[in-house]
């Protein structure tokens, strides 16, 4: 009993010391320590990985960085960006535009970024977009593809007949987003039997689609399981899911110029193939995202 109590006390102390700084005083969270760049991430693996890449690149330039990982969905993180609790967040330009203005058209990546900047809160801006793209997409599993004769050339419009028989899965926020059920209904006229709330393109969604719990799902185009499980991603000719280039969303005032340069340098080097490879390392090989981030930065000469 004494040994147990001792261990518990040691753990308590360890907890107090290791959570020092901002975490110690919860109310201080809203205003991060001056000079510290707070890098946030959304609640899916790629977001954590990208945040680690951004954070480590900033550290390499001598900036003080604090991470705030796994915050939630864009609906939540955008609020935290606006009130200044988060300084840098990996974003996807077109997805952000669809969130800010669901009616906005998406003609080109540049036009999208320009449009986003206009709609953004005045304290926020987008830095350079990377060529790396990771869109939402609707994928069906192999069995469904076979049953309804859907191939890689099929479009979302081809799903119209089958949709009423299918259950579609996605993150809870997919249900109310334009780049989600709303847009699928208004742009392609797709009315599914029902919606099953899963996670943001993570293991829940992947396994629900693989096990046919859902027949269609919102899957990220960089998802390594698409190939592994033989999912069929449907074409999106109306460009509902628009452009989704990985782009840092930053709070202008709190990020010094060398930070801007560091993040732009990351964007210049990050392309879709690289992102897929890094995702696979985290999601399939179960490597720690921070290690993957550091290794890539070193190989890209950004550390």
């Amino acid at each position, binding site marked *: 009993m004494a040994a147990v109590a001792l261990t518990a006390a*040691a*753990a*308590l102390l*360890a907890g107090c010391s*290791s*959570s020092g700084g901002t975490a110690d005083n919860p109310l201080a969270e809203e205003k991060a320590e001056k000079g510290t760049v707070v890098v946030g991430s959304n609640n899916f693996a790629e977001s954590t990985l990208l945040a680690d890449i951004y954070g480590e690149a900033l550290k390499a330039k001598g900036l003080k960085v604090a991470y705030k990982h*796994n915050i939630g969905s864009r609906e939540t993180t955008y609020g*935290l960006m606006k009130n200044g609790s988060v300084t840098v967040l990996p974003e996807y330009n077109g997805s952000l535009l669809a969130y800010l203005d669901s009616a906005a058209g998406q003609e080109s990546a540049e036009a999208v970024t320009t449009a986003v900047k206009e709609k953004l809160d005045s304290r926020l801006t987008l830095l350079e977009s990377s060529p790396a793209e990771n869109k939402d997409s609707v994928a069906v599993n192999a069995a469904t593809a076979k049953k309804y004769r859907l191939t890689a050339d099929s479009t979302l419009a081809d799903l119209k007949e089958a949709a009423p028989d299918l259950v579609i899965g996605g993150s809870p926020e997919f249900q109310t987003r334009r780049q989600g059920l709303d847009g699928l209904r208004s742009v392609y006229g797709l009315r599914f039997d029902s919606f099953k709330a899963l996670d943001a393109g993570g*293991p829940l969604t992947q396994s629900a689609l693989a096990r046919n719990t859902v027949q269609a799902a919102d899957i990220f185009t960089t998802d390594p399981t698409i190939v592994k499980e033989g999912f069929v991603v449907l074409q999106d000719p109306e460009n509902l899911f628009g452009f989704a280039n990985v782009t840092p969303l930053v709070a202008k005032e709190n990020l010094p110029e060398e930070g801007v340069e560091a993040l732009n340098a990351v964007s210049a080097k990050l392309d879709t193939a690289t992102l897929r490879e890094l995702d696979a390392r985290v999601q399939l090989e179960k490597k*720690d995202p921070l290690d993957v981030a550091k290794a890539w930065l070193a190989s890209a000469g950004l550390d």
Partner: protein
Amino acid sequence: MSGFFDIPSDLQHSYLGLIGLHLREALLPVLAGLLLALPTAQLCARLRWLYPPVLGVTTVFYAIPSLAVFVILIDYTGQTELTVMIPLALYSLVVLVPAIVDGVRSVPPETLAAATAMGFGPARRWFQVQLPIAVPAILAGLRVATASSISLVSVGALIGNQGALGNLLADAQRYDRPELALNSVLTTAVLAIVCDALLVLARNLLTPWMPRGTRASAKTARRPEPSEPEGALR
């Protein structure tokens, strides 16, 4: 990095750090709940008409799922530990008030009369007679509140890494690493059992007059009041 104790970097804590954080997020609210419950219970024990409405309010509150309270609180206290700890303190309060009131009420009237006859004022009688006799009931309430609190902290993982060991659950899902979930469940259960054992030890130390046999069940002189809310994840 797929071992049982390989904590993903996004949690920014070591295994021991998570344990410490978990204990802090779970136990501080119980302590706060106890500090609030003592005066509330005293008031309820003295003013009999107050008890039924207090019990009604606490029962309704207890039925509200913790996650809902977390989410509503985010607007006021942000995605912070405080957001997790406030509802836990309230749940502890809800468990402890009836436990203390019942414990205090179980003090036989003749004992109270004896104390009064010995010249004890109300305050002295409360602290030196009623509370000590109510210790078994209070500790029984504390055991339930502590177990519940330790279990509930994990739900904080849903509001942005505020769940200490519960964050391992979210990461287990995010990275498809079941061993992290197993680690979380086992560690949380061990913490709960250790804390429970410590509370039993405390009860035995605080009630040296109680014969060994009756200690096994926390029965007081009266018939037990089993409707005490049990802790759980809501």
